[in-house]
C-alpha cells in the first residue's frame, strides 16, 4: 500500500467522499470487470459494482488497514456477488446469455464497441470466449476470474467463497475445457503414464 493510499484511506475514514472517490477510481475498472464477467450483463454489472462501492464507503470506518485496500474491496465484492446470487437465483439463471460479438455491436452503453481498427479476429475471439464463459455458472466464472485474472490461490478462493479447494480447481478446469472447446483447441490424447510428481 502506498503512503498516498494510506492518507486517502484516513481521509475517507474522516469521512471524506472525495477521497473515497479517488480511492475508488483506482480500482473501479477491476471491480467492474469482475462484476461484468460474473453477471454477464452491463447494466447488472454497474448496479453490482456501485453496490460494492456503496457498501465499502459505509464500512470504510471499520477498515483497519491490516490488509491491502484492494484485498478488502475484493472481499466485499465477492460477498456482494454471493448475496446477489442467493437473493435472485432464478434471475441469474435467466441471464446466461453470452456477451457475444453481437452483444458488443448492440447499443449497450456500458460496453466499449470494438472500434473499426479492432481486428475481426479479436471480435471472433471475444465472441468465442464469452460463449465459453456463458456455459459456466456465475460461481464457476467468478472462480476462474479470481484464479486467472486476480491471481488468487485456490486456498484463498476456497476461503473467500466458502467452498473446498477441489471445487475451485474443478471450476477452473471446467472453464478451461469450455474455452478450449470454443477455441477449437485439439486436446492431446490422454496417454496416462506414471507421474513423477514434483520432479519437473
Amino acid at each position: 500500500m502506498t503512503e498516498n493510499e494510506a492518507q486517502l484511506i484516513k481521509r475517507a475514514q474522516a469521512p471524506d467522499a472525495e477521497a473515497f472517490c479517488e480511492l475508488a477510481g483506482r480500482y473501479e475498472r477491476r471491480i467492474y470487470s469482475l462484476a461484468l464477467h460474473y453477471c454477464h450483463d452491463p447494466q447488472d454489472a454497474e448496479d453490482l459494482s456501485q453496490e460494492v462501492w456503496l457498501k465499502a464507503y459505509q464500512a470504510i470506518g471499520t477498515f483497519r488497514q491490516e490488509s491491502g485496500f484492494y484485498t478488502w474491496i475484493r472481499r466485499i465484492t465477492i460477498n456482494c456477488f454471493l448475496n446477489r446470487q442467493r437473493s435472485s437465483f432464478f434471475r441469474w439463471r435467466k441471464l446466461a446469455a453470452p456477451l457475444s460479438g453481437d452483444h458488443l455491436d448492440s447499443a449497450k452503453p456500458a460496453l466499449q464497441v470494438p472500434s473499426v481498427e479492432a481486428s475481426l479476429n479479436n471480435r471472433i475471439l471475444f465472441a468465442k470466449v464469452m460463449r465459453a464463459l456463458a456455459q459456466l455458472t456465475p460461481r464457476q466464472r467468478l472462480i476462474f476470474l479470481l484464479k486467472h485474472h486476480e491471481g488468487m490461490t485456490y486456498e484463498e478462493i476456497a476461503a473467500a467463497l466458502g467452498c473446498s479447494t477441489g471445487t475451485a480447481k474443478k471450476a477452473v478446469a471446467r472453464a478451461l475445457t469450455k474455452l478450449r472447446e470454443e477455441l477449437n483447441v485439439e486436446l492431446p490424447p490422454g496417454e496416462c503414464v506414471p507421474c513423477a510428481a514434483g520432479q519437473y
Partner: protein
Amino acid sequence: MHNCKSTKTILIELAAGDANQLSGELENCAACREEFASLRNAFRAADTAIDLAQPAEAFWRGYHARMRDRLQNSPPTSGWLPPRFSMLLWFRQVLTTSIRVPVPAALAFVVLLVFSIFFAIQTRRASGAGSILTQPPIVTKTVEVPVVRDRIVTRVVYRSIQRPSRDLSARDLARARDYRQTEPAAVTAQGLEGFKPANEAKVTIINGSYHDDK
C-alpha cells in the same frame, strides 16, 4: 503424457502464471509441452476478451458521477469506533449474521424441532391430567379478620323505695288517691320495654339517696 491429476494442476498453475516454458521432466514430454501451450493460448484468449469487454473511457465519467450521487446519499460510519461501539457492532454482526445450511439439514432440524415441541406439549398434558386425580395440597394461611367491638350500653336505673307508712293519716291517703285519679299517665311507672340487654351488663351504683339531698 502425464495425465494424472497433479500434473494437470501443475500445468494449469504454470500456464496461468508467468511461466513461458516448462522445465525438468515436463519439458522433455512432448504431450506436456503441447498441453501447456494449449492452456496458455486459452488463458491468453480469455485475457484478450476480458480486456475487450472493458467499457469506453466516456462510460467512466458517468459511472463516477452516479457513484458520487449514491455516496452522498448514504453517509459512512465516522472513523474509528470506540470499544463500546465496537461491542455494539459485534452484537449487531452476531444478530444479523447468516450461515449457509444445506436444505436437507435445515429440513431435518425443523422436523426435529416440531416433533420435540409436540412431544413436550403431550408430556405436559399427561402430567397435568395426573395431578387432577391426586389430592390438592393444603395451604395454611393466616388471614387477619377485623373484630367488631362490643357496644357498651349504660343505663341508669333508679330504684324507688316504698317505705311502709304506719302512721299515714287518712288525709294523706285520700290525697294520694286523688292524685292517681287526676294524673294517671304520670303515675305509670317507666317500664323496660325496648331495652335489649347485652351479654355483659354493667351496672353502676351511685351511692347515696334522695334523702341526702335534703
